[in-house]
């Protein structure tokens, strides 16, 4: 049964991708995508409902599989080299060559040895959480992409549709992610890690504009740094240990004498690069040129989470080390720094990108703290951030196609134009910052667990305040213009509507169900052994020694409060409408006052972006330098 599901979940996306490439007919292709999505979601849900299990090497044909993976690895690197030559990127050429040499070296010196009884693919607690994210959020984003890409190509006036290629890569990516989280052998994981890099590169450059290509190449070489670090780590582990098996490494633990700790530091570096932490954030910012579903899938919900996933895997091994402690401070710093930069942005997608980096930083901080409560916080943040951020990205994508701008200022009063999307955007924003929603639950857990670590908590509280600032002003101005029109959903394609509303409802529903998720999923990630659970759950109230969060009661109250507020909104619309205060010089036109020489003047306040304090040009250099110092500390500390 398990073997079947794992094989299914790995091979179906690839098969469907091939199908997309072959079919080349819109309706049929869309059908393939939708059915694949449904099947993947069902498979992931089934996986959650059965006991942890896996596939052993014997079941996969032993050495043959190793050979396939090695060949694929080399194939990937050759593709990298090809793109490096084509786009004249020395960095890519150099880093890919280095990886080839490292891999070849390890193969030649001490080939990875996978005993027949070793697990190759394993679905344990953490993998199941990741599978849920990938296979529930991923297909929804693909569903949204159907209409999005149609509009996108209409807008670009393409003669020959590039959609088959687009969906091919998207689906391959889903398969790669599934493989990545299921892999139990580090060198297999490396292959999938590189495969996601390739998918990301192809999707960022999808539009083939000079900017897109430029940013894609940047993403490729920056991520190659991570790949190289990963390959180097493989060599080091291989030299010091006789296995690349994650489970065995975990049970063996580490001894300071061997090279495991530097190897772990290198893996940590690979994770940071993949998650676009400072000072590697530029590739993610550049990646925003990609069509928005790509940003949602790769650069918010799933691919950037690979770093977190890797760290969560390694967390038990680095427990109590300087590396772990350093990661906590580093993560806290990135949380603050990226939030500060987000305040200075008016480009919606950039705000989302910085917010993603910032939240990933917070998760890194939690992983670095490496206590059971902190790891619980990390898993909750991982889960809810993926859902909420996917929703927000898709909303911005939908808005952008409608108003042809992604600038926050242009979204003023969006409610009058796109009521449904505006409401869902506001809901998404509120889910990011407000109790009782999941992201805040995670943040609450993070704060409670970070409270004993004074440097980290200082960074986290400051970053948290900045986060509120940039989200709240965005949500506020969506409702800004006087609302006179009755509620009337704008016309949007069924697939868009379905994706947005399922994500929105799912985010809210999952938030309310967070206490049950704890027993179902999360506790298995944190305490696979016989440790006592961190939180006790009863009546939907999560309680630990340090604190208590009444998730379910608060959710009920929030729902009732929201209903009352909606009634108030409807009631208020029946009140007498007056123009806003304009010092007595308002005119019949909204927001226009009689100015000097009796001329009408458009009044209006724009948001504060505080560029003199939080400007990108101003801060980035300093923040990057600080992050680099922390990073050197993090890597150097292990030697």
């Amino acid at each position, binding site marked *: 049964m398990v073997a079947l599901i794992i094989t299914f979940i790995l091979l179906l996306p690839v098969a469907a991708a091939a199908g997309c490439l072959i079919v080349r007919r819109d309706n049929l292709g869309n059908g393939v995508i939708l059915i694949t999505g449904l099947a993947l979601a069902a498979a992931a849900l089934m996986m959650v409902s059965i006991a942890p299990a896996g596939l052993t090497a014997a079941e996969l044909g032993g050495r043959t599989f190793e050979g396939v993976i090695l060949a694929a690895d080399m194939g990937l690197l050759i593709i990298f080299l090809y793109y490096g030559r084509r786009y004249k990127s020395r960095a890519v050429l150099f880093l890919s060559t280095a990886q080839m040499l490292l891999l070849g070296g390890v193969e030649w010196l001490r080939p990875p040895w996978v005993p027949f009884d070793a697990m190759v693919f394993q679905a344990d607690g953490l993998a199941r959480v990741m599978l849920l994210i990938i296979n529930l959020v991923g297909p929804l984003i693909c569903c949204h992409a159907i209409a999005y890409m149609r509009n996108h190509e209409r807008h670009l006036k393409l003669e020959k549709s590039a959609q088959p290629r687009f969906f091919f890569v998207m689906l391959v990516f889903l398969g790669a992610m599934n493989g990545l989280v299921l892999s139990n052998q580090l060198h297999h994981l490396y292959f999938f890690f590189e495969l996601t890099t390739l998918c990301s590169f192809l999707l960022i450059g999808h539009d083939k504009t000079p900017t897109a290509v430029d940013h894609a190449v940047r993403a490729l070489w920056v991520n190659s740094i991570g790949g190289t670090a990963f390959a180097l780590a493989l060599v080091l582990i291989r030299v010091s240990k006789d296995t690349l098996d994650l489970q065995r490494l975990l049970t063996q633990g580490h001894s300071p004498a061997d090279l495991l700790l530097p190897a772990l530091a290198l893996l940590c570096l690979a994770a940071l690069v993949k998650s676009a932490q400072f000072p590697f954030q530029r590739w993610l910012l550049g990646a925003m040129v990609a069509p928005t579903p790509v940003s949602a899938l790769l650069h918010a919900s799933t691919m950037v989470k690979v770093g977190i996933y890797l760290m969560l895997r390694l967390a038990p091994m680095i427990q109590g080390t300087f590396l772990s402690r350093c990661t906590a401070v580093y993560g806290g710093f990135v949380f603050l720094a990226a939030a500060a930069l987000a305040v200075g942005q008016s480009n919606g997608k950039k705000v989302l990108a910085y917010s993603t980096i910032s939240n990933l930083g917070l998760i890194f901080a939690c992983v670095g703290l490496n206590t059971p409560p902190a790891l619980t916080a990390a898993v909750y943040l991982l889960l809810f951030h993926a859902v909420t951020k996917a929703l927000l990205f898709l909303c911005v994508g939908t808005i952008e196609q409608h108003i042809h701008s992604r600038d926050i200022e242009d979204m003023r009063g969006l409610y009058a134009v796109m009521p449904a999307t505006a409401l869902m955007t506001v809901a998404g924003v509120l889910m990011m910052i407000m109790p009782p929603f999941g992201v805040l639950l995670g943040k609450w857990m993070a704060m409670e667990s970070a409270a004993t670590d004074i440097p980290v908590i200082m960074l986290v509280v400051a970053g948290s305040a900045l986060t509120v600032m940039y989200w709240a002003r965005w949500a506020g101005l969506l409702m800004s213009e006087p609302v006179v029109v009755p509620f009337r959903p704008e016309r949007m394609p069924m697939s868009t509507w379905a994706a947005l509303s399922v994500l929105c409802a799912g985010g809210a529903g999952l938030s309310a169900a967070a206490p049950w998720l704890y027993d179902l999923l999360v506790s298995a990630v944190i305490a696979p052994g016989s440790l006592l659970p961190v939180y006790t759950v009863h009546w939907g109230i999560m309680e630990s020694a340090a604190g208590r969060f009444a998730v379910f009661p608060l959710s009920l109250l929030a729902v009732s409060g929201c209903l009352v507020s909606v009634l108030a909104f409807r009631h208020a619309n029946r009140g*007498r409408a*007056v123009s806003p*205060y304009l010092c*007595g*010089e*308002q005119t*019949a036109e909204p927001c226009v006052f*009689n100015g000097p020489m*009796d001329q009408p003047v458009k009044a209006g306040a724009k948001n504060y972006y505080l560029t003199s304090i939080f400007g990108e040009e101003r801060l980035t250099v300093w923040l990057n330098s600080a992050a680099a110092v922390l990073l050197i500390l993090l890597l150097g500390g292990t030697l």
Partner: protein
Amino acid sequence: MPIQWLDKLIRRARVKSPWLLHFDCGSCNGCDIEVLACLTPVYDVERFGIVNVGNPLHADLLLVTGTVNRRNGRVLTNLYEQMAAPKVVVAIGSCGLSGGIFRTAYNVIGGVDQMIPVDVYVPGCPPRPEAIIDGVFLALDRLSRPAKSSDRPPLKPVAGRSSP
């Protein structure tokens, strides 16, 4: 019975908490500084719960000083329309009543009642703070009565009210 009691409470609260908006139409400042003086320690109208809120959306009481011309008349009407009912208007000073000494000047339309309905007229050039407070209390008397829509004649169309 509870309704009556509530009604009484509300009317009492209205009398006890008049928030005023002061607008200087075209005054010489004489009346304005006397209005301001009402707020200060010697007269201290906050004793009666009167607060100068400076915002039509919050105010119950519109104190207008000075003569009306086309330009400030437009502002005056705008402010009056932004106020939430129940509201009362007190015209202060000879100019606010009729145009006063400037009545014959070329840019003067006349008193405040040329633009908006006035409830209480406080004469004087300028009226003393005591007189202004007295006028406010006369206006409060009106606030404490149940408001009828017939109390408010519709605004007269006056040239210059809407922007050109």
